[in-house]
């Protein structure tokens, strides 16, 4: 159903919380295989946008299409194609890493015969092969985040939504995450990542968006501006919004 139209498309997207407008008539198209970094200050609507795309929230008005399916009406069709990582772990502390993945594998109705092998592979990918049978409660934040990514990749999603995934990670963990995201991008997944880290965004992503006061203030390929210029542009846009 996707054909020539973009993989993800948002038209006149509006989201209000208690009459306060968070997203104002947002229009956005994301092509298959893009790695989009979504930047913006707190309250600009980044997390809200991701929640809307993941189907966790419903738009106040406007439409969202993912792979041709309309959200939220046809959200069920889309869920199997999406993986989401947030700054919260989304894991069960009293289960082992393996048990966590097995649980989600069942929820995603993945074929049982492959699943153990799949899980083993994923744990290796994220560097947790030796800790497969440890309780998640014993994991450091970095390890939990890595397991979270393994969970997101379980169903082999076409779209990865990452909400501030680097929060609370130390250098080493962040580097591992870099590697995983780069790999996911190379695998052809479409990635939408929110972040506060301009440098990292510019480095990893193929396209950079700056969200400000519920609208897109900047939208260009990552190569368009270098780190310094991007930083300046960012300050421009965000201070412009508050000055209004």
């Amino acid at each position, binding site marked *: 159903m996707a054909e020539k139209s973009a993989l993800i498309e948002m038209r006149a997207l*509006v989201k209000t919380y*208690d*009459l306060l*407008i968070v997203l104002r008539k947002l229009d956005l198209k994301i092509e298959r295989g893009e790695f989009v970094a979504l930047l913006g200050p707190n309250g600009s609507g980044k997390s809200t946008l991701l929640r809307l795309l993941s189907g966790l929230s419903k738009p106040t008005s406007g439409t969202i299409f993912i792979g041709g399916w309309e959200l939220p009406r046809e959200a069920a069709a889309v869920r199997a194609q999406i993986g989401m990582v947030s700054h919260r772990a989304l894991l069960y502390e009293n289960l082992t890493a393996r048990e966590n993945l097995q649980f989600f594998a069942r929820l995603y109705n993945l074929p049982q015969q492959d699943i153990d092998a799949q899980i083993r592979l994923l744990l290796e990918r994220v560097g947790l092969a030796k800790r497969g049978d440890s309780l998640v409660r014993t994991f450091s934040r970095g390890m939990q985040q890595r397991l979270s990514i393994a969970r997101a990749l379980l169903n082999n999603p076409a779209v990865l939504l990452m909400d501030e995934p680097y929060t609370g990670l130390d250098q080493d963990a962040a580097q591992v995450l870099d590697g995983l995201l780069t790999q996911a991008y190379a695998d052809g997944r479409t990635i939408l990542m929110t972040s506060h880290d301009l440098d990292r965004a510019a480095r990893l992503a193929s396209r950079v968006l700056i969200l400000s006061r519920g609208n897109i203030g900047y939208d260009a390929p990552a190569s368009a501006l270098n780190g310094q210029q991007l930083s300046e542009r960012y300050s421009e846009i965000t201070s412009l919004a508050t000055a209004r």
Partner: protein
Amino acid sequence: MSAIGNLSSNPNQHARSGIAAWPPLLRILTLATIIAVAIGLYLGLFYSGTDIDQGQVQRLFYIHLSAFTGAFIAFCGTVLGGVQYLRTRNVQWDSIALAGAEVGLALSILNLVTGMIWARPIWNTWWTWDPRLTSAAIMCLTYAAYLMLRSGIENAEQRRRFASIYGILAITTVILTLMITRIRPDTIHPVVIGPSVQNPNAEGAFEFSERMSMTIGINSAIWSTLVPVTLMWHRVRLQNLIERVNALKAEVLNK
């Protein structure tokens, strides 16, 4: 999509205030209710005869039962509002639900208090854990919990949604409890409608004269229709004003 679209915005309402701002029908209704309640009280206090067994305190019954039916009607408004809100997401329905809960709670407290005042001289106790009293008390507590739920949620959309759900559960509880107490007639509470295990002439049951029947009939009708509807209408108007203020506030903040 502006929330104001949901409210009836009559430009003339800006110019006038107080009673002048009420819709004509509401003015008539309020007047009619006040007159009707006065007539009902007259009937109850003067027109109907004094009960042989119970004396003057029996007159409380006219308010007591009427308040109960009024409360029940109001609570039906709450559940209707809740169901319709979940279906249509029109805020007006939630305002009706809220109004129903508040008015209904007030009337059920009235029911409970008049019942207690009656019970003291007749049963020689303020309270007893008789099933019917228990269920009346539960009705009060359930809707008090409903109001507490509403006050505990900041997000308006979530508040309306959760309140609607709880409103549906609340009426179910009231109905189930009422039915349960009917099935088990081992109660000392006078059974006015339906079979009573007691001798109808014994203490606790009522024998109605013509005048009493008319009084109770009229009072019931007034309190179960005019009173809740009028009170709820006023409450809904108040709620609409509150919503309007919120919408205007949001408009300013959204700029």
